[in-house]
């Protein structure tokens, strides 16, 4: 095997791994869209907010410290304790469930029956609101997530494969964090599928996704299901926030990871959980291979461009995406 081929394989593997990271973000979009038909523009900000909350709780930060200090004339910023990771994650989940309840109670309950574009615009407002609240609660400084997640390439794999294609092959590089993200994504998808297939609330969620009115007529509480769905999306956002935040620190640019999820959704379909995974893998692999083979010829930085062009092609030839439900409206 030539060195060039081995490096191509390395790029391909890393592309797949990057795709998993994109899928983690895309999953949250799918959950909400499938259950309620809402394209949740705030999903990226939810990932940011969840990660900020986790980091803030772990560090023992006082939420809204600036406001408290300004009103009371105090100078407190930290409680002086550090919360263990597992407990902090549980507390963050509680916060995200509370957020889901608030969204349902104060926003979408008042918008029942509105056009999809109205609901979409409501999520834009929600995104700005949540970003502002996140800033007020936890501040805008970059936070480090001390969860003990592994960083760096797998030295074992490098040592095992070094020199395969000749002296100028330095072994396969695979990021350990990406490996963890892959395992987490597999567990997450398996859990979501098991939940929707084998639990009462999961089946109710699917029923609501299929037909709201029919679900309502058999006694399913739409209110509860939508809170459940937003809570699940909040949990998925937390997982995505942890994985992306481990790379760069938790900072406000995390909200922009949603931009990486959009082509994944267009390709995989907005209503399919497996579609989010497969779409992510295709986008990740495709953009990395394109950058490797063509990028240097056109000045580089082709990844975002490629992802959106590929998504555009799918929109033209298969608008529902690979796994999305075909929408047929009879007149």
């Amino acid at each position, binding site marked *: 095997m030539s060195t060039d081929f081995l490096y191509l394989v390395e790029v391909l593997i890393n592309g797949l791994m990057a795709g998993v990271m994109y899928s983690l973000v895309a999953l949250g979009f799918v959950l909400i869209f499938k259950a309620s038909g809402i394209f949740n523009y705030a999903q990226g900000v939810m990932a940011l907010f969840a990660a900020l909350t986790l980091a803030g709780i772990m560090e023992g930060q006082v939420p809204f410290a600036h406001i408290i*200090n300004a009103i009371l004339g105090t100078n407190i910023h930290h409680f002086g304790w550090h919360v263990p990771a597992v407990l902090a994650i549980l507390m963050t989940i509680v916060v995200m469930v509370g957020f889901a309840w608030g969204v349902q109670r104060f926003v979408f309950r008042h918008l029942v029956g509105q056009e999809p574009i109205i609901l979409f615009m409501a999520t834009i407002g929600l995104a700005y609101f949540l970003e502002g609240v996140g800033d007020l609660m936890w501040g*805008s400084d970059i936070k480090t997530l001390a969860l003990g997640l592994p960083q760096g390439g797998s030295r074992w794999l490098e040592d095992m494969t070094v020199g395969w294609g000749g002296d100028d092959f*330095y072994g396969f590089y695979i990021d350990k964090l990406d490996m963890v993200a892959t395992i987490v994504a597999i567990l997450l998808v398996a859990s979501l599928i098991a939940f929707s297939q084998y639990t009462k609330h999961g089946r109710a969620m699917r029923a609501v996704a299929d037909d709201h009115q029919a679900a309502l007529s058999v006694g399913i509480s739409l209110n509860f299901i939508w809170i459940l769905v937003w809570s699940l999306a909040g949990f998925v956002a937390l997982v995505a926030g942890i994985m992306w935040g481990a790379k760069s620190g938790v900072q406000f*640019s995390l909200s922009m990871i949603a931009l990486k999820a959009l082509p994944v959704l267009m390709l995989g379909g907005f209503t399919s959980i497996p579609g989010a995974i497969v779409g992510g893998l295709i986008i990740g692999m495709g953009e*990395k291979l394109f*950058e490797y083979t063509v990028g240097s010829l056109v000045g*580089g930085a082709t990844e975002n461009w490629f992802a959106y062009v590929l998504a555009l092609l799918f929109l033209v030839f298969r608008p529902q995406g690979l796994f999305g439900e075909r929408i047929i409206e009879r007149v």
Partner: protein
Amino acid sequence: MKMKKLAALAIAASVTAAPVMAELVIPDLSYRTGPYAAGGTPFSDGYQDYFNLLNARDGGIGGEPVRILECETGYSTERGVECYESTKGEGALIYQPLSTGIAYQLIPKTTADQIPLHTMGYGRTSAADGEVFNWVFNYPANYWDAASVMVNYLLDENGGSLDGKTLALVYHNSAYGKEPIRTLETLSEMHGFNLTQLAVDHPGQEQKSQWLQIRRERPDYVLMWGWGVMNQVAIQEAANIGFPMENFIGNWWAGAEHDVTPAGAAANGYKSLNMNRIDDLPVFAEISSLVHDAGNAAGDGSNIGKVLYTRGMYAAMLAAEAIAKAQEIHGVAQVTPAMVRDGMEALEITDARMEELGMAQIGPAFSVSCQDHGGTGFGIVQEWDAASGTWTALTDYIAPDDSVTGPLVTEDAAAFAAENNITPGCL
């Protein structure tokens, strides 16, 4: 009816009779929110705290109090222009937007409105040519100086030769990130090194392709032109692939504490340029006691002494000195923007003056002239010590190669003048 008239007259009299409160208006186009807040907040804190110190200690500048007008841009060019438009009517004396995108938009506006624009170490590099850019200043250094200082440092590290070496430039794929390319290309021809260019898409959260390429091609050095999340991710990715940190040098917008702390111990040894020295300056004690303890801190007071806080304070000091110079030239305390421009053009920052201000050697000594709005272009190289969480200066101020940057500035400024029908000359 009579009573109403009397009341109206009383109000009008009270308004017209009120003494006009003279003040020096300094807008602060800050960004404390959004993806770039981690960099914008400490800079703005330092900028405002210094003016607050002058108000508390000296009653302002030349006896005139300073009024700061803060306007949040979120690092958005559109909002930056809106901030400019909404504050210029207040009598704004000088703008320092801390954004190359906003700076580019403000160059024609400030020129038309005759308000000086100071882009310290950012913005349009050829603004150093004061005969073309009468109202724009970028002292003490610009991007092309930075590229040249980096190469001069590496020349020094390699016994005066970079022949056959490979330098990779990892840059933000924007006007800002592309600024050093031309200078580095010229320098690569001059010194015989190979230059690999690696563009990173905005915002820079995903850089796997670029760092896999670096791992494959093993350049001798990596130079970085980044801002925001791009810096943190790049440093983490460099650590991940095992690239030697001592061979990784960022520019002065990629060398703050928050750029390195997310990578933890793995960032140890990372280097960056700085246009101002990081030190425990006596002025910090004054700011703490007269501004922070008095409850007038611009932020929560936690950023004092940090890289970007110090740079913001340095920027404010340069503005204050220019205003003082303008007052001296024109013999009035209440100066106009045009007078401040005169002060900037006659500015002379000496070692003795910096020491007097409690910030000895914060920057190089330099003077500005009608022809030269760019200063000396000096920069230091600093290294991050992860264990102590501090930057250490590895070098004294390094001079750029003016024989390379000078002609590039002249050429680019001449092109700008031709495009905009400007006849170069002094005001």
